[in-house]
């Protein structure tokens, strides 16, 4: 394994939020001593949270500047032994794929953090207290814990470590949705919905997937060949992803006895894919997403859509593709099929939505379907399109959810049909919404387009002719997408002004602070995607080489 080892930068990035958590705990501990008022504690923890997130972003910038896009090997590796008995190592490092996700994470979390402090602008009235004024220290602690989990997931190069971080993501999410999300309510059809329901649904769903992944992890470990720990000592099994990748590619797992009559690589492929595709989410496993999105507070929806869905795709690329290329060829058509179903199905379901957030949620299902399709195409265009779609969706969907949050903070409803003619009252907001919608429906010149067109193009060129049909089936979804976004636009902003909303006010600085950077990124990436490609290309090139070399 050839990489410069033991740079602390990633460790700092990952654990800076933990430092923030410590600081908040310190404030809480010192509260009685210093006779701090509740308000003081809240403000302090907000400040700490913001500081930590900013710090992560700055470190991220440093990472970006120092990253060498030209090399395929891992960079900024920090590599020490954690548990010798199991050959578990603390092994973090980034290649192009990881770093793009890490930077996206830092960016989106910063936006989400800004969106979760009640500063810089009016955001509620006395009748509807804003979630960001509730149990602030707890919120900030969990928020930062979540950030650590996500960053760790993207940086971990040790399977066990990856799994630990992967699970660490769940726990804070549960509370963030459950406590700060929508209060429980009873739907017209008598089903109880709301934050708690959505939270536990998300939690159970994802856990069910990841426990199966745990089995795959152990099975892979016991069937992995000899390897070396960082200190050079020889071990008979390993969690080290670099080794595991090599073994997987060299077909070491093909020699393992089949399980239940199915070849071992296929079994672990399916097990891993199950865990990841629930997070993506892929068609039959998507139902946790609308609930979670709708009932989560705005910043959490932002993170959920912008980052957490990407962890699933990242896992698929990092493990299924990279480690099991041959099996990937076997599974690709199936994955693509489900991807297409997600695309079309999600788009159609969007058309029927009345709740703005639910609409956006289903559009996420649709757009993540593109990632699956492109990934399964196994062509350069397809895979880099898939990754770019991850990035662009990671920029656009946060915008959309922030937009939904803006209107919800004012009107305390998200019923699309309830609005109308808002354009006259909130011109700036309307403009940004239009931009976000256009970006999301893949208007050329905005970020969303590049991912989609690359995915389609890659799909068309896939070695399996069936993929052409998949693409042909998926392309009409583009029309549907335009349909539901424009229809929403028209129902909310155009037409007669609904006097009920005459009290609404246009964007405040807090919202500008979150939305304009994202908007700028959307436009910039649309015309100049080079920054992303420069990061990911070399390692994707490597990946594609492996896969195509695989057969």
């Amino acid at each position, binding site marked *: 394994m050839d990489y410069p080892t033991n740079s602390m930068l990633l460790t700092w990035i990952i654990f800076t939020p933990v430092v923030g958590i410590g600081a908040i705990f310190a404030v809480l501990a010192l509260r009685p001593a210093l006779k701090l008022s509740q308000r003081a504690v809240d403000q302090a923890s907000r400040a700490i949270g913001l500081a930590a997130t900013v710090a992560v972003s700055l470190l991220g910038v440093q990472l970006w500047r120092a990253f060498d*896009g*030209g090399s395929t090997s891992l960079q900024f590796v920090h590599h020490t032994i954690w548990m010798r008995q199991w050959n578990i190592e603390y092994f973090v490092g980034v290649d192009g794929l990881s770093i793009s996700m890490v930077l996206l994470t830092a960016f989106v979390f910063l936006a989400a953090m800004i969106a979760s402090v009640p500063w810089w602008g009016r955001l509620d009235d006395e009748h509807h207290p804003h979630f960001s004024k509730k149990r602030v220290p707890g919120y900030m602690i969990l928020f930062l814990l979540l950030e650590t989990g996500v960053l760790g997931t993207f940086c971990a190069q040790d399977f066990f470590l990856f799994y630990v971080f992967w699970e660490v993501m769940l726990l804070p999410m549960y509370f963030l949705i459950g406590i700060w999300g929508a209060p429980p309510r009873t739907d017209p059809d008598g089903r109880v919905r709301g934050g708690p329901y959505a939270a536990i*649904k998300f939690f*159970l*769903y994802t856990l069910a997937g990841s426990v199966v992944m745990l089995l795959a992890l152990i099975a892979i470990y016991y069937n992995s060949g000899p390897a070396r720990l960082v200190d050079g000592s020889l071990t008979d099994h390993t969690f080290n992803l670099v080794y595991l990748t090599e073994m997987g590619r060299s077909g070491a797992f093909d020699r393992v006895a089949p399980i239940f009559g199915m070849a071992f690589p296929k079994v672990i492929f399916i097990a891993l894919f199950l865990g990841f595709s629930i997070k993506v989410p892929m068609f*039959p496993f*998507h*139902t*946790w997403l609308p609930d979670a999105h709708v009932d989560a507070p705005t910043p959490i929806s932002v993170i959920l859509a912008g980052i957490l869905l990407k962890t699933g795709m990242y896992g698929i690329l990092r493990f299924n593709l990279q480690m099991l290329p041959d099996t990937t060829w076997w599974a690709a058509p199936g994955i693509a099929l489900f991807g297409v179903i997600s695309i079309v*199905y999600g788009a*159609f*379901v969007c*058309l*029927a939505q009345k709740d703005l957030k639910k609409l956006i949620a289903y559009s996420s299902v649709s757009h993540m379907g593109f990632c699956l399709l492109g990934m399964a195409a196994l*062509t*350069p265009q397809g895979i880099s399109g898939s990754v770019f779609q991850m990035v662009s969706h990671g920029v656009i969907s946060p915008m959309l959810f922030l937009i939904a949050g803006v209107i919800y903070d004012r009107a305390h409803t998200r019923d699309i049909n309830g609005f109308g*003619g808002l354009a*006259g*009252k909130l*011109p700036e907001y309307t403009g940004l919404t239009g931009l976000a919608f256009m970006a999301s429906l893949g*208007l*050329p*010149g905005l970020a969303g*387009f590049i991912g989609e067109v*690359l995915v*389609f*193009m890659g799909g*068309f*060129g896939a*070695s*399996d002719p069936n993929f*052409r049909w998949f*693409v*042909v089936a998926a*392309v*009409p979804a*583009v*029309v*549907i997408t*335009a*349909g539901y976004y424009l229809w929403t*636009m*028209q129902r909310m902003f*155009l*037409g*007669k002004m609904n006097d009920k909303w005459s009290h609404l006010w246009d964007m405040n600085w807090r919202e500008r602070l979150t939305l304009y950077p994202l908007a700028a990124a959307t436009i910039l990436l649309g015309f*100049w*995607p*080079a920054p992303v*490609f*420069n990061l*990911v*290309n070399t390692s*994707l*090139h490597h990946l*594609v*080489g492996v896969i*195509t*070399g695989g*057969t």
Partner: protein
Amino acid sequence: MSLHPFPYLWLIPALPLLGAIINGLFGSRIQRRFGETGIWATAVLLPWISAAIAAWAFVTLARSGPETALYVKLWGWLNVGWLDADVAFTLDRLSGVMCLVVTFVGSLIHVYSIGYMRGDPGYWRFFAYLNLFMFAMLTLVLADNFLLMFVGWEGVGLCSYLLISFWYRDKEKAVAGMKAFVVNRVGDAGFVLGLFLLFWGVAGTWQNPPHVQHPLPDIILGGEGAGATTRAATAGTVVGSEGHSLPAPQRVMMESIVSGIVHGEGAAAAAPLPRTSVKFREVERILRDPARRDAFVSQRWLGLSLVTLACLFLFLGATGKSAQIPLYVWLPDAMAGPTPVSALIHAATMVTAGVYLVARLHFLFALSPLALTVVATVGAATALFAATIGLFQHDIKKVLAYSTVSQLGFMFVAVGVGAFWVGIFHLVTHAFFKACLFLGSGSVILGCHHEQDMRKMGGLWKLMPVTAFTYLLSCLAIAGFPLFSGFFSKDEILWKVFSTGNLVYHSGGFWLYVIAAVAALCTSFYMFRSFFMTFTGKYRGEPHGHDAHASSPSTHDSGLTTHDSPAASHDSPHDSSHSQPAAHSSHLPHESPASMTVVLAILGALAVVGGFLGVPPLLGFLPNWFEHWLEPVFGGSEHFVHWRHYPHAYEWGLMGASVVIAFLGAAVAWWLYYAARSPIPGRLMASGSPLVRRVHRLIYNKYYVDEVYGRVFVDGGVGLSRGLWWIDARIVDGLVNLAGRIGALCGMLQGWIDRVFVDGLVNQVGDGIVAGGRRLRGTQSGRVQTYVYGIVAGCVMFALLTYAVPW
């Protein structure tokens, strides 16, 4: 085709974009601070500058030899595998013509809008959109590859959406915009599919696609795609999208290209062929190569040749943009936008993009007679279809809208029979006279206080002479009166159709000619109908006053802060009850301000003389500049399209015929509608003859196509979505919840059994001691276990007795 570096090319689209950004971001503030002048100062100036640059570029191009094109690459955009899309602009002779038309007509219409939009609170918004449109349209025209063209392609769609629903307060207008965008999106889907087919087809890997994107073994690769491909050869790869991120081989290639650019011809021509490309000129070069062309054409999918499929999909895109059957439905509704928009976008420029696309891809379409036939047939059908609808419309803008659809049909007929330059020629002349007509109608509408119904007009000849005169000129032009621009272009089209030998079905040329001729007749008729109804006779409109505006609902809350038209319910800006009190002093129509009439005059003049660019050799009193100019572009496809050769007599005859057609249509219109004297139309309407009524209703309601589409696609789609939503909520999600509930249920059941059994025991104990007797209470549930345990015990004992007998 050698590339000539022209570093200022990018300014042509960039300047309008700049204007759009300025007005889009700060417009509202500027308008509050400096008034409307502050807005149009930038918004009108910048397009003129880019028009100037375009002219300069045009001249430069003309100077630098026939086989050249001006080229500038800004930065790499999407260079992945074989995909080689840059943000780069090319100006060859074809795009040069388009560029001039767009910038020039566009700038004129900007000027026109200064006056037309006066007093509208959304002034800044309007000009921002208009500039944005210019940017998109110019990108479409100048793009050097499909993907960048697609940026413009959808960009213009977006702008037309924004501008159609400019007065968004009015639901109809909002919906019209939406319709336009979605219908266009259908076409765009076709466009991208066609593009993919082309891309992979050209690569020649359709039949047996590669795992790795290898280069062809027998072809030394070159061009910018080549770097990608050579790297792909090493490991099937994703190539950097930026020069400096690219590996050595690619950089070398780029240098070679640059050098090729620098010393013109030779070097670049020598540049070896790429594997495949999205660059127009690269694809053309590849298809010029016989081996590669055969490799491409021989591939089939769905029983059709790949080239045909690609053409048809791309043509689907064209029909969407250019409002041809089956996707024409959005254009008439698009008239909801302000009239300058109708003139610029829905007459002169955007809707011609489809024609431009087909012409731009002549080398592709020329390879597929079937595709060309489809294009020509669809064009002819649309021409006639729309013309008939145009016959009975009362809304002046609707008339013009259908006439636009029809004229676009003519253009497609032209390119469909392989007469690409003629299509472009008609495109240009049409841009002049149709823009003039629309602007004239706009002037009329403004004059008549937002009245669009021609039955309420009339007699405007005296009231607004300039408008009337220019309108007349344009009518003559579009009807094809001799020596007017339309005459040359349309007559050339008819002749080419007649003499084409390119259609797949026998003697198709003749029948297409007949259809086109009838369409031309209708055109002449309804255009003059509109002219006579509008400008002759006496004014039939009732006086307009403030009542008209009092009735308009949105005038109540029209503060400057709300960015919509105070007179949203009318197709026209508020006729400036604030800014132009004069307008209201007299209730009679009035001539429009100079800024508009001047534009009308210029366009009218062009509508007259524009035709002399392409005088057919038959008349030959002037050289056919236009054909010669475009010859280098389309020359490549010449030997793919065939012409039947007729003696000159035929040509004279046809020319005469089309003259007759023009006069006939005008005469009938004069007879029926001049000064509204003739009673016939009224009687015809009144006549109880069911046939007449039914035909009239059918045509007047546009053959109910909108209704059918609405039922089938809109309702169908929404219905489907509802169904899927139900499935999602009830079934997909239901299963999940069901699983959970089942689990919980099992739990409860088990717990219940536990409790009943156990508690039963203890309760019985309680009974047994306290209230003796009642033994059997609550033991039913216990019985089950009883038996189970009993059975177990019995079995065990039996087994024991059987086996434990070694002793």
